[in-house]
């Protein structure tokens, strides 16, 4: 990831976390890539503070992959709508072009239990 992409990913992460209903951010991507990523972090060749957002340059343009946890009371459908709108603004401001945004809800934060923050 270039420094420009890292900065964009970091800003997308901030915008996503700021949205009502977002309980946590998780590392986006496939299981295999996440296992490799966890290994890389374990042996110190990747920083824990690296963005959880995945950016990928494809022939069609930029692709943004986001995995979120949602507060139970907020609703996944409504929260995705908000995140999508916020992320689109950040991308248009910084990237200047449209991007494909992929958002996946991977956890619903049950308000009756103690959920962990990623």
């Amino acid at each position, binding site marked *: 990831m270039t420094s420009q992409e890292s900065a964009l990913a970091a800003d997308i992460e901030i915008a996503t976390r700021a949205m009502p209903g977002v309980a*946590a951010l*998780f*590392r986006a991507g496939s*299981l295999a890539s*996440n*296992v490799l990523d*966890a290994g890389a972090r374990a042996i110190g060749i990747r920083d*824990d503070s690296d963005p959880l957002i995945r950016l990928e340059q494809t022939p069609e343009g930029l692709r943004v992959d986001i*995995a979120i*946890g*949602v507060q*139970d009371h907020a*609703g*996944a*459908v*409504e929260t*995705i*709508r908000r995140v*999508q709108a916020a*992320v*689109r603004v950040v991308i248009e401001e910084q990237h200047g072009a449209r991007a*494909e*945004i*992929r*958002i*996946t*809800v*991977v*956890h*619903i*934060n*049950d308000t*009756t*239990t*103690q*959920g*962990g*923050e*990623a």
Partner: protein
Amino acid sequence: MNTHDTPDPLRMEPDDLDGHTIEELSDYLDSGRSPADPSIDESAGCQIALDALERLRVLTPELIAADTAAESEADEGWVQSILAGITLDARAGRRIPIVIDPPGPDAGITEGAVREVIRAAENTVSGVLIGRCRFDGDVTVPGEPVLIRVDVSVPYGQPIPGLVDRLRTEINMRLSAHTTLNVTGIDITVSDLRHPSSRTGEER
């Protein structure tokens, strides 16, 4: 019709919980999630399993002690089924599309998160515990009819039709908030009736 569940859900692969086991997660809860373990806190699968374990502890502390010799075989079977459900929930499973209007992002929710949504409905219907949860229909195709099937355990002495109706209403409401699935029905099977005195060995 496509029924999707796992034949032997207690058989967990290490990657299902990002390298952790249910026992480790149980210990993590015992320690009050301290010291914080990022490999657990940043894993959606672990978070789903932790939530379910915590709910189970709050709702039925006596079930947690089910591995003691005092418990009957039938009770152990039900606890195994609950734990099986938790481990199954922790698997991300298929990605279920969420249709946003107007069309925008490629949005979705993991099958594990949807199972978690269904299972958490037990919080609002006192004493009900959800065991197996299955989807009949292809959840990966937007608009495809999907029938939800859940097995539940209910406490002895409470009118079952009322409990089941409340649970069905709650599951339906929660699915509407978190998914855009075309749910054609929610079948609830009461597969266990719990006698409080048989759990603890105390007479009431």
